[in-house]
């Protein structure tokens, strides 16, 4: 049994390493010729004209992920607390099913909804509608179930003695939640939040459809932006030579960011102690 597991996990790890090596190989020609720094310092992204600035897209990816997490985080944690401590059993189970359904919704469906409903709505307030805020809203909706479900799992995994201790001290339900429970599972919640942030960073189709894909540093929430992932999806089909290699550099950058997030979340969560 152990041997089977070892083979399977080694194979999975090897494939991952191979994928990264492949991306490096594909990106290498342009990295060598242009140098990594120019990807950060070039003023614009016009690969056909020899300009490879990825900074605006890097900023856009981080801004969208941060916005989505700031929005979905409180709602996700609140809904987990609600389900666990306040909701009556039937309501809690209905709520949990709704979350699972939302979690299972294919991202392209959310994207289509964003493109045909949300973007025109935002466009009536401030054209063009396809914007940073549209990306933040749709992504928040996407990662909310992840945050809610990981938080709930963390709450479930908490030792019962904490609750009994709080009850013995005569604490109200509010003080128990705010003063005992949430501090106790803080690390696990943060880990879940960062994991969903990593997912938000990697999300592609949705952003391609709702953020407008203009390469620029956003000055306001209503400005269109292009995420690193959307950049790849938009241009890969017809890219050649250095342009194609430059897209692999965007891919490497996303991979690096996600790796960073996962490492930090692992730190915060104290290893993979919670059950997702």
């Amino acid at each position, binding site marked *: 049994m152990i041997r089977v597991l070892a083979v399977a996990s080694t194979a999975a790890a090897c494939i991952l390493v191979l994928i990264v090596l492949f991306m490096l190989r594909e990106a290498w020609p342009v990295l060598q010729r242009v140098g990594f720094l120019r990807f950060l310092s070039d003023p614009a992204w016009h690969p056909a004209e020899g300009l490879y600035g990825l900074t605006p897209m890097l900023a856009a990816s981080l801004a969208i992920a941060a916005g989505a997490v700031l929005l979905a985080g409180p709602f996700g944690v609140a809904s987990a607390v609600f389900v666990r401590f306040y909701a009556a059993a039937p309501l809690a189970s209905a709520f949990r099913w709704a979350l699972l359904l939302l979690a299972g919704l294919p991202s392209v469906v959310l994207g289509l909804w964003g493109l045909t409903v949300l973007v025109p709505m935002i466009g009536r307030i401030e054209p063009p509608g396809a914007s940073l805020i549209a990306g933040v809203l749709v992504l928040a909706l996407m990662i909310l179930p992840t945050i809610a479900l990981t938080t709930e799992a963390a709450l479930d995994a908490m030792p019962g003695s904490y609750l009994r201790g709080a009850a013995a001290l005569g604490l109200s339900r509010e003080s128990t939640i705010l003063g005992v429970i949430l501090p106790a599972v803080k690390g696990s919640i943060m880990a879940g939040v960062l994991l969903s942030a990593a997912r938000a960073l990697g999300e592609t189709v949705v952003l391609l459809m709702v953020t*407008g894909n203009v390469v620029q540093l956003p000055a306001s929430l209503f400005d269109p932006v292009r995420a690193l992932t959307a950049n790849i999806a938009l241009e890969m089909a*017809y890219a050649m030579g250095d342009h194609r290699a430059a897209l692999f550099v965007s891919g490497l950058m996303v991979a690096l960011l996600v790796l960073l997030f996962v490492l930090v979340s692992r730190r915060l969560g104290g290893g993979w102690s919670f059950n997702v």
Partner: protein
Amino acid sequence: MRKHFTAARLAMLFVALLPWTETVAQADEARLILTGSSTIAPLAAEIGKRFETLNPGIRIDVQSGGSSRGISDARSGIADIGMVSRAPNPGESDLKFFGVARDGVSIILHRDNAVASLTDAQITGIFKGNITDWKDVGGKAGRITVVNKAEGRSTLELFLNYFKFKNSEIKAQVVIGDNAQGIKTVAGNPGAIGYVSIGAAEFEAGQGTPIKLLPMSGVAPSVENVRNGSFPLSRPLNFVTKREPQGSARRFIDFARSKNVNELIKAEYFAPLAE
């Protein structure tokens, strides 16, 4: 996409040929190599697939790489047939051009937009960001949303060639990938202006999607006007050979120009030439 497709086909072919190694030499003889325009490549691959089923033993290999590569590969003999998505240049009279289809791009607006036509100068002004309000071009007051295509798309290339500016000069508010996304973006924004393949736009407008196609220099935007060459924002899609084609190359070119492949051409939103 294309790479995958070729790799999968190669793998399949390899498996199919395993027991018949002695026929490999023969199969190699009946192999046609097409290289060139990435606009034509998907269509050529589809036509090639159908041609292969009708002519067992002949293999069609399609590689993209741009119209210039199509010209140079046909000239040097690396490719049997080059794919070139423009009219022949003066220096290319040594090559034989065979029209397969035409590609046309239409400016599209939201159906509720009061503007019925725009001059080339107005379109240039809008896309360069000098004109930002519809009231400046005879419409109702409202901010213009410029919808541009992502770098590398053939519609973008055709658009830039026609209006003679660089992609970096365009001040876009939305950048889109395929035609469908462009049509949905314009349909959802009454102030938007974009451009997509005429075939796709005509089809969607016919289905009731709230977009309208603008005439160019007074010529109505229709697949028919792309086909007969009168629509200005259009270009021919050509197969190019060094000499008068013989044997399987001849048969393949004739097949691609016959009406047997018209629905394949329409599926790629191009206008077929054969009646």
